[in-house]
């Protein structure tokens, strides 16, 4: 009966595309960093929303409701692309960061002169005003292996707890820490090189 009602009411779901399309797309894009996948996810979300429109309670805003569905779709997408339990060779390989630290002598394991973190003068609010900086963030995340980047965005953008992310991605806490460590080493270095070490802005 419910389905029949949904189909017969003259509700036009395309209005969602106009009202929330950009928002949902941008949300998905910031997580998956691929326009086509983002668009697919938005489409899946809207289709799912159409079918469960009856369960929508006017209590929450329509956008929040749609965004909630989208979040589930994104996690499903991550889960699908994260079948294997162990870290892949690429994900576990920390040797690509060897160059940041001295390999011998008394100071073995200490920062090399050119990799040493520099002083970051601006504050987070300020840097985010620059479109170029926001572009660098996306670019730097895109350089990481996919699962490592997914791990990082789930933690730092969506604020999920470590344990939840381990469940989503089917990884052990230890592997989660390795991935987060890796993501941070890389991102910090990438942001430092591409933004703070360049003085023109």
């Amino acid at each position: 009966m419910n389905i029949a009602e949904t189909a017969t009411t003259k509700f036009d779901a395309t209005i969602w595309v106009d009202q929330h399309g950009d928002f949902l797309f941008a949300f998905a894009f910031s997580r998956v960093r691929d326009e086509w996948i983002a668009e697919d996810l938005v489409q899946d979300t809207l289709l799912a929303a159409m079918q469960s429109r009856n369960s929508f309670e006017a209590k929450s805003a329509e956008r929040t409701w749609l965004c909630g569905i989208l979040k589930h779709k994104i996690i499903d997408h991550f889960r699908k692309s994260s079948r294997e339990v162990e870290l892949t060779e690429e994900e576990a390989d920390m040797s690509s960061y060897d160059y940041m630290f001295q390999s011998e002598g008394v100071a073995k394991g200490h920062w090399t002169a050119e990799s040493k973190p520099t002083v970051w003068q601006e504050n987070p609010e300020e840097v985010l005003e620059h479109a170029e900086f926001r572009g660098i963030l996306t670019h730097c995340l895109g350089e990481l292996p996919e699962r490592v980047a997914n791990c990082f965005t789930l933690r730092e953008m969506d604020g999920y707890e470590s344990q939840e992310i381990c469940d989503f991605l089917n990884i052990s806490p230890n592997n989660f820490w390795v991935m987060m460590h890796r993501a941070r080493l890389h991102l910090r270095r990438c942001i430092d090189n591409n933004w703070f070490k360049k003085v023109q802005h």
Partner: protein
Amino acid sequence: MFKKVFVWLICKTLPSCREVTELVSHSMETELSWRKKIELKLHLWSCVACNRYLFQLKFMREVFEIQEDKFNRNKKIPTLSADAAERLKDALKSSKFLLLFALMYCF
């Protein structure tokens, strides 16, 4: 001589910067054991670079937080292209017909 021994002792007993970057990241996810905490504190107390590392990880965390916040207030976001919007609308429209067909088929 004494100074050399002291430096050598510190280098040998305390974790290196490389290990500390891992500890710092770890400490942002979970509570460290008291032993690790002391090692980290002692290292940070004497190492400017790792202090910056810790500061910058917190900086990045804040950047992503603020970005999310701004995003939710709908500022400065990438947008759906006109083509993509059309494709989505088509998908929604055709799914309606599918639903009707499915219903007709069922009853």
